[in-house]
C-alpha cells in the first residue's frame, strides 16, 4: 500500500510541475502586463507578411506527405511502446524474447520498406 501511495505521489509531483510550468509562464506574463505599454497603431495588428498586405487567404493545402510521415511515426511509435517492456526484460526472456521481437520488428520494417519502395518517403 505504501508503494501505491509513493507511486501516486510521484505523479502528483509531475502534475504539480505541469501546473508550475503553466503558472510560471502565466505569472511572468502577468508581471509583464504590469509593465508593458499598450500603444495601438493602425497596422500593428495586421498579420506580418514582409510588410505588405497578406496575399490570398492564410490557408494552405499542404501536401499529403506530412500526413504520411505522421502516419509512419504513429505506427513505429506503437512498435516502440511494445519494445520498451521487452527491452527491460530481455535478460529474462533470452533467445525466445529475441526471436519474438525480431519477428515483430521485421514485420513492421516491411512497412517501412513498402513506404520506401512506394516512394512516399521522398517528395513527389
Amino acid at each position, binding site marked *: 500500500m505504501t508503494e501505491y501511495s509513493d507511486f501516486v505521489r510521484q505523479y502528483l509531483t509531475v502534475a504539480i510541475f505541469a501546473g508550475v510550468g503553466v503558472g510560471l509562464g502565466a505569472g511572468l506574463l502577468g508581471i509583464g502586463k504590469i509593465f508593458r505599454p499598450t500603444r495601438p497603431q493602425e497596422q500593428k495588428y495586421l498579420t506580418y507578411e514582409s510588410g505588405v498586405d497578406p496575399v490570398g487567404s492564410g490557408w494552405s493545402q499542404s501536401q*499529403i506527405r506530412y*500526413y504520411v510521415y505522421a502516419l509512419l511515426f504513429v505506427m513505429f511509435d506503437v512498435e516502440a*511502446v511494445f519494445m520498451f517492456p521487452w527491452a527491460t526484460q530481455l535478460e529474462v526472456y533470452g533467445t525466445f524474447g529475441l526471436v519474438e521481437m525480431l519477428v515483430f520488428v521485421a514485420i513492421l520494417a516491411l512497412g517501412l520498406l513498402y513506404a520506401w519502395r512506394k516512394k512516399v518517403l521522398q517528395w513527389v
Partner: protein
Amino acid sequence: MLVNQFLFLGAILFCIGVYGVLARRNAVLVLMSIELILNSVNINLVAFGAMWHATDPANLSGQVFALFVIAIAAAEVGVGLAIVLLIYRNRQSIDVNDVDLMKG
C-alpha cells in the same frame, strides 16, 4: 475508491462519444468522437485490470488489453484520416453526409 467511479466515467465518455458520432457531420470530428469511445473502453479495461490485479498480482490482462486497444486505435485513426484526406482531395469536403460513395 469504487470500481463504479471509473466504470461510470467510462460510460459517460462513451455516451458523449456516441452523441458525437451521431451529431457531427465533419469527418475529423467523427473520428475524434470515436477516440472518445475507445478511451472510455480503455478506462474500463484498466479499471477491471486494476481490480483483478489487486486480487491476483499475476493478472495484468486489463493493462495489456488497453495497450492493444491503443495500438488498434492508432491504426484506426491512421487509416480513418487517410480516407478522410482522400475524400477531401476528391471532393473538397469532409462532410460525412455528402459521402455516399457506396451508393451506386
